[in-house]
C-alpha cells in the first residue's frame, strides 16, 4: 500500500493529463457560449450539432480517407521493404551487411526539417506535388532507417540454425524470408507498425510541405486550416481533434503493450 502523499501526487498528475482531454471531449457537445461559461464541466445536453456542422461544411470523410490511405500504404511498404533489407543484411557476408546497415541507420540522425527543401524540389520535379503518392514516398524514405534498425536488431537474435535448416530443406531466400524469418519476427514487426502508424498518421510537416488542395489534405493539415477558418469556434475545432484522434485512441486501448514498445523503441529517433 502506498503512502497517502504519494497517492495524492500520482492522482493530481493524472488529473493534469486527463482534464484537458475531457475538456476537449465535452466541448465538442457544447455551443461556443456554453464552452466559455463552463469550459471544464459536462455539457448541458449531448448534442452532436458540432460534428454535424463539421461534416456539412468540411469534407471530413475525404480528409479521413486521405489519412487512411497515406498511413496504410506507407506502413505496409515500410514493413515490407525494411524487413527485406533487414533479412538481406543478416544473410549477406558480415562486412557488407554492416556497411549496408550503416548506410540506412545513419539516416536516423537526420531531422526531417533538414532535407525538406530538396524534398520539396524533388517532389515538384517528379510532378507529385499535391498528390498523396508524393507524401507516401517521402514518408517511406524517412521511416526506413528506424525500421531497418529495429528489424535487423531483432532478426540478428534469431538462431542461425533455423535459417540453415530451411536452406537444407531446399527453401529459396524468398521462402525462408516469408515462412521462417517473418513469422518469428512478428514482435518487432508489431513494434515498427505501431511506431510508423503513429508518426505518419500524426505527421504535419510533409503534408504541410507537399499538399495544398483540399482533395488531398490529411487530417493534421485540415485541422491546422480549421484553426484559421473557425478562429474561436473551439467546439468545432475540437470535434475535428476528436475525429482525427479516434483511430489512434481505439488502437491504443486495444494494443497498449505494443504502443509502449513501439514508442520507446523510437528512443533513438523522434
Amino acid at each position, binding site marked *: 500500500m502506498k503512502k497517502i502523499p504519494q497517492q495524492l501526487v500520482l492522482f493530481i498528475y493524472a488529473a493534469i493529463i486527463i482534464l484537458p482531454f475531457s475538456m476537449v471531449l465535452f466541448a465538442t457537445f457544447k455551443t461556443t457560449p456554453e464552452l466559455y461559461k463552463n469550459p471544464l464541466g459536462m455539457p448541458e445536453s449531448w448534442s452532436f450539432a458540432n460534428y454535424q456542422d463539421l461534416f456539412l461544411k468540411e469534407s471530413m470523410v475525404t480528409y479521413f480517407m486521405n489519412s487512411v490511405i497515406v498511413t496504410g500504404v506507407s506502413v505496409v511498404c515500410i514493413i515490407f521493404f525494411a524487413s527485406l533489407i533487414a533479412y538481406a543484411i543478416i544473410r549477406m557476408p558480415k562486412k557488407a551487411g554492416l556497411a549496408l546497415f550503416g548506410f540506412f541507420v545513419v539516416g536516423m540522425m537526420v531531422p526531417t526539417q533538414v532535407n525538406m527543401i*530538396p524534398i520539396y524540389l524533388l517532389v515538384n520535379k517528379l510532378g507529385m506535388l499535391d498528390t498523396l503518392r508524393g507524401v507516401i514516398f517521402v514518408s517511406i524514405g524517412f521511416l*526506413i532507417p528506424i525500421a531497418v534498425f529495429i528489424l535487423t536488431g531483432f532478426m540478428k537474435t534469431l538462431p542461425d540454425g533455423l535459417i540453415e535448416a530451411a536452406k537444407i530443406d531446399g527453401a529459396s*531466400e524468398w521462402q525462408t524470408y516469408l515462412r521462417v524469418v517473418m513469422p518469428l519476427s512478428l514482435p518487432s514487426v508489431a513494434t515498427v507498425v505501431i511506431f510508423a502508424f503513429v508518426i505518419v498518421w500524426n505527421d504535419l510537416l510533409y503534408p504541410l510541405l507537399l499538399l495544398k488542395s483540399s482533395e488531398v489534405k490529411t487530417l493534421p493539415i485540415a485541422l491546422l486550416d480549421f484553426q484559421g477558418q473557425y478562429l474561436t469556434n473551439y467546439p468545432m475545432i475540437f470535434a475535428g481533434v476528436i475525429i482525427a484522434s479516434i483511430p489512434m485512441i481505439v488502437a491504443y486501448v486495444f494494443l497498449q503493450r505494443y504502443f509502449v514498445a513501439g514508442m520507446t523503441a523510437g528512443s533513438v529517433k523522434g
Partner: protein
Amino acid sequence: MQSNNNVERVGGASVASPYVASTAKKRKKKWNWALFFFVLPGFIIYSVFFAGPTVAALFLSLTDWNGIAPTFNYVGFSNYTNMLTDDPIFVQSLGNNLKFTLGVLIFQTVLSLFFAMLLVKNTKANIFYRAVYFFPTIVASVSVAFVWTFMYDPNIGVINNILSAVGLENLAKSWLGDRNIAIYSLAFVQFWAHTGQMLIIFVAGLHAIPKELYEAAEIEGASKWQTFKSITWPLLAPSATIVVAYTTIQSFKAFDLVIAMTGGGPSYATEILSTFLYHEAFINFRFGYASAAAVIFMIIIAIVTVLQFRLLKSNDVKF
C-alpha cells in the same frame, strides 16, 4: 584452426538447434544474388527521397538560390558566416531553442524519473497510471497544440479561469502573447506531452536492476537515499542517457507545436531552429540560406546522437 573457429561461432549461436553440428562447415555466408533484389526497392526509395535530398541540402547551403530563379551562384560559406555573425533572428532562434530544450530537459527528466520510481511495481493501479501518463504521446501534436492554445487563452482560457477562481488573478497572463514567457509556455506543453514516454524508458531501466542488490542493501541497513545513490542511480545511467538524448533531440524538433500554437511569434519570441529554417525557405524564399541553417541544425543533432552512443558504449550496456 578452421574447426575451432566454427565451434566458437556455434557456441555463440543457438546451441539447442539440432542442425548446428551438421551445418557448421557451411557457416560462412555467401553472396546470393536474390538478396540484391531484396534490398533494391527500399534502397531506391530511401536514396531518392531521403539520403539524396540530405546531400543536396549540403550543396544548396553553398548557393544563394531563391527557389524560383533558373540560375544561382555559388557563394562558398558566406551563408554560414552571415548567419552566425549577422543574423539576430537566427541567434534568437538558437537561444529560444536552448531555453526550450533546457526547460523541457530538466523538468521532464527529473519528473519522469520520480514517477517511474513511484510506479515501478507492476500493480494494476500502477499500470493504469502509466497508461494514462503515456497517453498524450500518441495524440497528434497539432491536436495537443489546439488543446493548449485554448487552455492558455488569456480571456476564456482554463488556466486563467482557474487562477482567478482560487484568488490568484494577478498571476493570470497572456501565456502565449507575452514575449518573455511564451517559449516556456510551449516548453510546458512539450513536457506535458512526453513525460509519460520517458517514464516508460525509466521503468524499463529500473526493472533491469537485479532485485538482489536491493535486498542486500536492506540487510546492510542502507537508507533510502543511500540505496538510490549507490544502486539505482549508477545502474540507471544507460536509461538516463537515452532519456536525456531523446528529450534533447525531440525538443529541437518541436516544429509542430510552434507552427500550430504561435507560428514563431510574438516577434520571433518562439522561433526555434526548425521553424526558422521553414520560414526562411517557404516564406522568404531563401533556399540557399535556409539550407545552411538546416546543415547547422543537422550538425547539432548529430553531435547529440554521437554523444549518446559514446556514453552508452562507455557504460557497456547493450540494448
